[in-house]
């Protein structure tokens, strides 16, 4: 190990840090608050043409013919493309490329693309697209995931309707239930949540004069998009450059290909003119991926003393017409379906099933949101039954670092569950909950307070490549350019990258220029997903930094005419050890290296640690690392209407180490509110394959009025593999709040809602039902 590597390691363990752990303001803040920040969908060019996609008219139909002649005759049409015009493979999909770029013989959802048009104006493109005549033979759509699994159901794909089936079995489930004093069994239904990023899918493509292709498009993994575009266009991927940062929000919804391949195809047919696509919200609702609706049946066995002893789970996920990441979502759901606990006997299985209900894919939480409600609700019911404290039950069953989890593997990475629970039971909202509950705003309203815990894997799990890479380059003005491909999507990862680099290189944050989402300038560093970007990108930078320090030290030694071992890194300069008067700054070093034509760029690579053995049939479990979290919430339910407000949230994430308190709070607050939306309001309704929800007029996301008081109390478990001890939290921040709100509604009213979203109608009915049962039991 070199001296420079040791120095950076020592630095990471230091208590007194200059940048890390501080609320450094977002480096992109000023550009964003003034509107100066250009998003990909903001670019316009004088010779630009507009692209438009023809979507399917039916959710399931055979295509008997496509006639484009009238569209081609439109005076302002530049090109009209169908499946015949795809030079390469007509399909895309991150894991299984089962989604046609342009449908040939069948459409499987109304979001399917059938043809593309480029025209002189958006209006002309819309006119031309409507002139395309498609001869369909409509088929009976498959609208229910369980019906799709039955033999004899219409087959949507050659291998049948079950895209994947995963299982995790540990211990002896039957014996577990035999030994149980209490058994709880319930079925939970979850909504088709929409990402609702504020910037809809779009961007532009251009065929450059040298024949290379430029794609500018908000996206979550530009390097992978490049490969998917190359496959469809039969192009050398090195001839494609994707610029994918910044994103106007993503949350997983821009993880899969959105419009990149359409842009690439059109750009190859517009004679070098840039082509722009920007989906309307209505088109985004229909064509964009959504969160998988799940039906989850959970049976949990427990002892009188609160020990969880058995958990059986069967989950069915509706992935819609295409797989996208449905298989991985289902696998992650099953991996997390028994919570962050050590339940000795589990038997869990998940099915990912094709239907004609749009398309589902990656979304913040990635399956865990849907399954966490089972185990958490059952713990709450166990507490009610036994009179034990619900937080105590969780503490009793939570695994510690070094324990065996419910999956049967020894968890060797940091685990902060107990610490989050201890913070929960000490927080004011929990301690004084009876007082807060008595302070109802109206006599017919009732308040409830509840807590829930969950966890979420960081990174990809076993079987999927997972690595980070960073470059650091010394610039002419003595600043450093830090390149990490992982896109800026709103989380502020770029600011954290600057903090980590500035800390390691002992310079000012202002002296770091961060470049992201640029396949030409940055090395492949994986996705902005899986709660991985701070952890992975940060570690890659901390790995590159010693290489830069070596480079600087060598040059400084030459300039100062001393041996390398005498050189020491100081703030914004290098000095001769013990003699601050002999120093060189980074600008002088640049000049020296430039004169001698020497490289000024270093790299750092990070392969995420992973478990050695994959659990059989699990689809990638277990993860090496998880983030843990407890939420405490207070709700107020209007018993006359069922309307429910979340009034107060205490968010307690185990973050490993806080790198930027303001950024962490921002994630926590945003995650909490997205979790409120999931639990109480949001659902894309699809009937017979057609979207009934069209826009924000009928898809209700929380507004500022629904924002509760949110406190964030981070717990630091110091994850040794992460940069300065940090781990990812972007997804877990919206997870335990879901069962916590459900339990708080029960605490307030006695009613349990197992079908989300918990709309006023559902809550009202459940309250009435609870009243009836209470009367009967009397």
């Amino acid at each position, binding site marked *: 190990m070199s001296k420079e590597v040791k120095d950076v390691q020592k630095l990471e363990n230091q208590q007194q840090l200059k940048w890390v752990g501080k609320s450094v303001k977002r480096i992109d803040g000023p550009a964003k*608050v003034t*509107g100066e920040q250009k998003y990909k969908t*903001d670019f316009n060019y004088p010779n630009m043409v507009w692209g438009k996609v023809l979507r399917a008219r039916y959710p399931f139909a055979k295509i008997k013919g496509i006639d484009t002649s009238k569209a081609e005759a439109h005076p302002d049409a530049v090109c009209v493309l169908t499946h015949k015009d795809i030079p390469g493979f007509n399909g895309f999909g991150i894991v299984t490329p089962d989604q046609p770029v342009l449908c040939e013989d069948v459409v499987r959802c109304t979001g399917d693309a059938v043809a593309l048009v480029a025209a002189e104006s958006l209006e002309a493109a819309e006119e031309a697209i409507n002139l395309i005549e498609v001869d369909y033979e409509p088929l009976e759509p498959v609208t229910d995931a369980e019906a799709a699994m039955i033999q004899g159901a219409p087959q949507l794909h050659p291998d049948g309707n079950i895209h994947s089936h995963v299982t995790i079995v540990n211990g002896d489930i039957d014996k577990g239930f035999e030994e149980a004093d209490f058994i709880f069994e319930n079925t939970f239904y979850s909504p088709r949540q929409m990402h609702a990023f*504020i910037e809809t899918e779009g961007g532009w493509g251009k065929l450059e004069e040298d024949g290379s292709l430029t794609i500018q498009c908000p996206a979550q993994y530009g390097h992978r998009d490049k490969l998917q575009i190359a496959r469809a266009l039969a192009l050398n991927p090195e001839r494609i450059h994707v610029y994918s940062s910044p994103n106007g929000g993503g949350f997983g919804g821009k993880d899969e290909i959105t419009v990149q391949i359409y842009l690439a195809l059109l750009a190859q047919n517009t004679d070098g003119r840039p082509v722009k696509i920007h989906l309307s919200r209505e088109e985004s609702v229909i064509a964009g991926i959504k969160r998988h609706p799940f039906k989850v049946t959970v049976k949990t066995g427990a002892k009188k003393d609160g020990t969880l002893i058995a958990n059986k789970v069967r989950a069915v996920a509706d992935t819609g017409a295409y797989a996208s990441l449905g298989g991985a979502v289902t696998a992650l759901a099953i991996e997390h379906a028994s919570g962050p606990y050590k339940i000795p006997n589990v038997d869990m299985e998940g099915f990912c099933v094709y239907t004609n209900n749009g398309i589902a894919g990656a979304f913040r939480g990635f399956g865990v949101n849907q399954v966490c409600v089972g185990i958490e609700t059952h713990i709450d019911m166990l507490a009610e039954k036994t009179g034990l404290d619900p937080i105590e039950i969780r503490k009793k069953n939570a695994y510690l670092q070094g324990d065996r989890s419910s999956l049967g593997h020894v968890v060797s990475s940091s685990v902060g569950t107990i610490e989050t629970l201890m913070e929960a039971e000490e927080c004011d909202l929990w301690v004084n909950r009876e007082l807060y509950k008595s302070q109802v705003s109206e006599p017919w309203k009732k308040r409830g307070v509840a807590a829930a815990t969950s966890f979420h894997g960081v990174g990809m799990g076993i079987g999927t490549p997972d690595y980070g890479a960073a470059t650091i380059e010394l610039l002419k003005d003595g600043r450093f350019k830090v390149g990490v491909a992982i896109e800026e999507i709103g989380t502020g990862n770029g600011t954290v990258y600057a903090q980590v680099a500035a800390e390691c290189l002992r310079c000012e944050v202002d002296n770091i220029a961060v470049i992201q989402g640029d396949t030409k300038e940055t090395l492949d560093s994986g996705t902005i997903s899986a709660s991985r970007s701070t952890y992975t990108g940060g570690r890659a930078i901390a790995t590159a930094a010693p290489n830069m320090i070596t480079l600087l030290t060598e040059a400084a030694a030459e300039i100062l005419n001393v041996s390398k071992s005498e050189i020491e890194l100081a703030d914004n300069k290098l000095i001769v050890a013990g003699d601050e008067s002999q120093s060189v700054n980074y600008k002088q070093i640049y000049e020296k290296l430039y004169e001698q034509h020497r490289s000024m760029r270093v790299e750092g690579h990070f392969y995420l640690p992973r478990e050695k053995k994959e659990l059989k049939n699990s689809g990638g479990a277990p993860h090496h690392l998880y983030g843990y979290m407890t939420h405490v919430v207070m709700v107020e339910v209007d018993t006359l209407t069922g309307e429910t407000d979340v009034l107060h949230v205490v968010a307690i994430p185990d973050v490993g180490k806080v790198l930027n308190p303001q950024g962490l*709070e921002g994630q*926590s607050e945003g995650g909490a509110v997205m979790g409120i939306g999931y639990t109480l309001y949001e659902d894309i309704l699809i009937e017979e394959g057609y979207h009934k929800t069209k826009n924000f007029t009928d898809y209700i996301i929380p507004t500022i009025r629904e*924002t509760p008081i949110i406190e964030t109390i981070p717990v630091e478990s110091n994850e040794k593999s992460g940069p300065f001890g940090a781990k990812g939290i972007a997804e877990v921040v919206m997870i335990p709040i879901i069962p916590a709100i459900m339990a708080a509604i029960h605490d307030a009213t006695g009613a349990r809602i197992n079908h989300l979203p918990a709309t006023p109608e559902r809550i009202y009915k459940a309250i009435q039902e609870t009243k009836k049962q209470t009367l009967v039991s009397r």
Partner: protein
Amino acid sequence: MKTFHFKVNGEEVSVTCPPTKTLLDVLRDQLDLTGSKECCGKGECGSCTILLGGDSVCSCLVLAGQTENVSITTVEGIGLTTKMDVVQQAFSDEGATQCGYCTPGFIVTARSFLNSIDYIPTDDEVKTALGGNLCRCTGYTKIIKAVQTAAQIQQAEKAPS
């Protein structure tokens, strides 16, 4: 096609376009003022908010034909990075922007609200004033704080020293 004359951020402009083109499209496509964003195109999200006269309105609901002789302020007119308005500074300092796509709309709405008050608003007052703007990233908590911080600074600046 018709030509319309109006003021944007203090400058006289004339734009030739179909009268049914939305003001948002005029600003974005013809005047390259892309700070105003389209998110829903229906007046639901507030991402395209501008000041028309002194009122905050959704520019996706205003047609070019309605702009003759009006005065418009977009987010760029409120302040640029070289000289940010107090509300922009507060949003940046308080971490009230994440992906940032909704932020220009919030800035314009918040500016309009702050123009109408000379006190530090309560949480509920901020919530009422900004109820028409959607944000998916921040959970709004820091936006509330930013508006209050801006009000505080605005008050301090106005106070006779």
